[in-house]
């Protein structure tokens, strides 16, 4: 432990140098903006700024601090357009739309923005504290997580989400299957066979997750707005001056604890990131709530706080295997790892002994960055909330422009622009038919991970299904899956019996 404290002291002495402090603040601010723009997420922000930071000749620790600031700044910023516009700002903010946007529509945009900023702060801080204390230990756990364990994790995720927006279970199921089908497009990662590409080379590497998110959510929302305008049925949202209160914080306190822990652990695993973290934590909260709790999806504070705490915690968690083992846990950390290598610094166990100023400087900057993000974000809540008072006929084209620019910036392939329009039409039709879009997205992201890992596990075992039940992690996850399926039914049972008795009498 003394090692940790002396390390932190070194770190803060690096991170608190005026120049580095300025970079953290700049990175956080810029990252928030990048995150808030639909389509552009942390990975793009970091990729865009890496060459700039390198060519400006920053010392490695400063460059890394700047890039990391952008990374968690973007995880913060993603929530803004999710809440205000119902368009996820980045991949980790999909679940935030489910309850965040209804809150804004109910005239609580300010409350939603400030509560989610606070949730992000708590998630991020819990992650960095856990990382400081148990980093190397956790990295071993993350790496030891087998493909078969990922299968169990995905089963758990499906179990928690089974009743998601469960007004109509059949439609939820159809939505999830549509997501699974979208995920199969492209070169199959296990056999190299082309699936559903129809000879279109742009489809060989599959459809990018963000293209699906922006298409299905963003463009569909846009078409919906245009349709409302055409029919003259636009509802104006009242300007609100609401803000998070102590009562709100107390109401979601356990949600925050659970979501932060789930987000952190999912983040540490090399194969999963912010989108899985937020989905699992949202599902868990929904399952923890009483079965007759109809608030979820209508603007529940827990449903907003959980994904936001989780996606920020996972950003911290993803740093653990990167720093301690030199293994990137997400696309964004892969770029950070590349940044280290550009500076001729070898990540991995020796990083802490050979370059303590970098390793600990980065960790200290995460503490500072989290505080800075809260300080930057809370006063801006009113400003952001006023975005909703922009008349729809200005707002709609603005969202369209941002979405198109965002998607084009990711990979610079015009094909993706056609793709989001096609997916937008599909999303709009699904909405017309009263489908919820969240299961489609979840089917897409969880399904791909499920398939890859299942087949990976089976190629490892040579086709023996027994491998799925070979570790304590998988047993635990299957037990938890059973728990979340049976639990609500069990809790609901005595009351039903009571009602039955009352009927008889």
């Amino acid at each position, binding site marked *: 432990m003394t090692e940790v404290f002396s390390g932190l002291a070194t770190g803060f002495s690096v991170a608190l140098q005026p120049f580095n402090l300025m970079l953290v603040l700049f990175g956080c601010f810029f990252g928030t903006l990048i995150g808030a723009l639909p389509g552009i997420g942390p990975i793009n922000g970091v990729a865009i700024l890496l060459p700039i930071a390198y060519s400006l000749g920053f010392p490695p620790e400063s460059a890394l601090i700047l890039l990391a600031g952008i990374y968690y700044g973007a995880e913060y910023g993603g929530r803004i357009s999710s809440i205000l516009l119902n368009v996820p700002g980045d991949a980790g903010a999909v679940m935030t739309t489910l309850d965040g946007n209804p809150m804004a529509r109910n005239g609580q945009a300010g409350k939603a923005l400030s509560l989610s900023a606070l949730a992000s702060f708590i998630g991020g801080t819990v992650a960095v504290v856990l990382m400081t204390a148990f980093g190397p230990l956790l990295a071993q756990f993350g790496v030891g997580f087998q493909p078969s364990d990922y299968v169990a994790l995905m089963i758990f995720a499906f179990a928690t989400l089974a009743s998601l927006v469960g007004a109509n279970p059949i439609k939820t199921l159809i939505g999830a299957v549509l997501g699974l089908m979208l995920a199969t497009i492209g070169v199959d990662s296990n056999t190299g066979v082309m699936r559903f590409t129809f*000879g279109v080379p742009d489809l060989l590497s599959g459809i990018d997750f963000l293209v699906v998110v922006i298409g299905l959510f963003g463009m569909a929302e846009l078409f919906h707005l245009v349709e409302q305008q055409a029919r003259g049925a636009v509802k104006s949202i009242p300007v609100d001056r609401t803000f998070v209160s102590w009562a709100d914080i107390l109401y979601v306190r356990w949600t925050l604890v659970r979501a932060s822990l789930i987000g952190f652990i999912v983040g540490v695993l090399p194969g999963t990131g912010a989108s899985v973290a937020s989905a699992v934590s949202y599902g868990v909260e929904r399952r923890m709530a009483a079965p007759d709790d109809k608030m979820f999806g209508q603007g529940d504070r827990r449903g907003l706080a959980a994904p936001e705490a989780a996606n920020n915690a996972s950003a911290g968690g993803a740093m653990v295997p990167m720093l301690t083992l030199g293994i990137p846990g997400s696309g964004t950390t892969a770029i950070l790892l590349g940044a280290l290598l*550009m500076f001729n610094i070898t990540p991995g166990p020796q990083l802490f002994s050979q370059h303590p100023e970098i390793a600990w400087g980065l960790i200290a900057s995460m503490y500072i960055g989290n505080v800075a993000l809260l300080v930057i974000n809370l006063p801006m809540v009113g400003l952001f909330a006023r975005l909703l008072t922009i008349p729809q006929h200005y707002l709609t084209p603005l969202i369209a422009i941002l979405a198109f620019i965002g998607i084009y910036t990711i*990979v610079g392939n015009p094909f993706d622009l056609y793709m989001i329009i096609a997916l937008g039409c599909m999303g709009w039709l699904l909405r017309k038919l009263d489908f919820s879009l969240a299961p489609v997205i979840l089917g897409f992201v969880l399904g791909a991970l499920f398939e890859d890992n299942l087949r990976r596990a089976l190629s490892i075992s040579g086709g023996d299904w027994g491998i799925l039940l070979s570790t304590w992690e998988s047993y635990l996850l299957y037990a938890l899956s059973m728990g979340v399926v049976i639990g609500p039914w069990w809790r609901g049972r005595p009351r039903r019996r009571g009602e039955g008795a009352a009927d008889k009498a």
Partner: protein
Amino acid sequence: MSNKTTVILAAMMGLGLAGTAMAEITKPECVAPAKPGGGFDLTCRVVQTGMEAMLPRALEVTFMPGGIGAVAFNEFNTSRTDDPNALVAFSTGSILNLLVGKYGEYSLDDARWLAGAGVDYGAVIVKADSPFQTLADLMAAMSADPTSVVLGAGGSVGSQDWMKAALIAKAAGADPKAMRYAAFDGGGEALAGLLGGAIQVYTGDMAEMAAHLDGSLRILAALSEERLPAPYAEVPTAKEQGVDAVWPIMRGYYLGKNVSDADYATWVAMFTTAHADAGFQKVQAEKGLFPLPLAGAAFDAAVRAQADTLKTLAVEAGLMPAN
């Protein structure tokens, strides 16, 4: 057609003609057929930084992702076939994709293979506590029972990464199709799989091992002709252990197939100079690449030689018909 359009069209055609006739590199560009941050980006950065002094102006790196390089290959065979300014980055993986038809109906003759950016070599890697102490131990285990060893890498079955594993299996006298192979999503995840015990052998690349020479892993063999320079000088090659397995992963550039001989020659001359330049070699090393001082006809021959090796393996593995 209005008068104005006619004038503009004529002007454009005139410019186009002037461009082809001048045989001059005015606006150098390197197309990375992928997203920013990957291997092709790195390939382009080598020429951008390493040849900065030689080029008339700063080289621009552009990205043309889609279809693991297919979109770019298609673009340079349809609309930009004679653009003398644009280099396109490629790797051994691209050659394989081209051969097995993932780029459509194109062949090796549909590009002008220009010059090497550098080369990396395959590596056979196990965990430090693995029972396989040498490549011979692994070979013995695999020839006794090909299914007793689980191999893995960052690419799908049939990919360049898989081929390294297939090459090892073949050298051990096992059928590559019978080997147990787990495909991971990129080298990072495969490495995690090795450290976590999901797979026993990782067929990765030498350069990525720079970060892992701390004793957590053991490199059984480098798949190079000769031992590589420090920090890899301690790693024996497969060849010196009596296993005939060499796997270079070439990185280089091609031009559109209709680029004139004069422009091609200009680029070849520049690369020949660069390959001998200490500054270029330094950039190469920084990007984790070993020298590949080939340009022009010699490079074209190297590409075709590697294509033959890839073809043989691909046919044996049933990935493409033997014709």
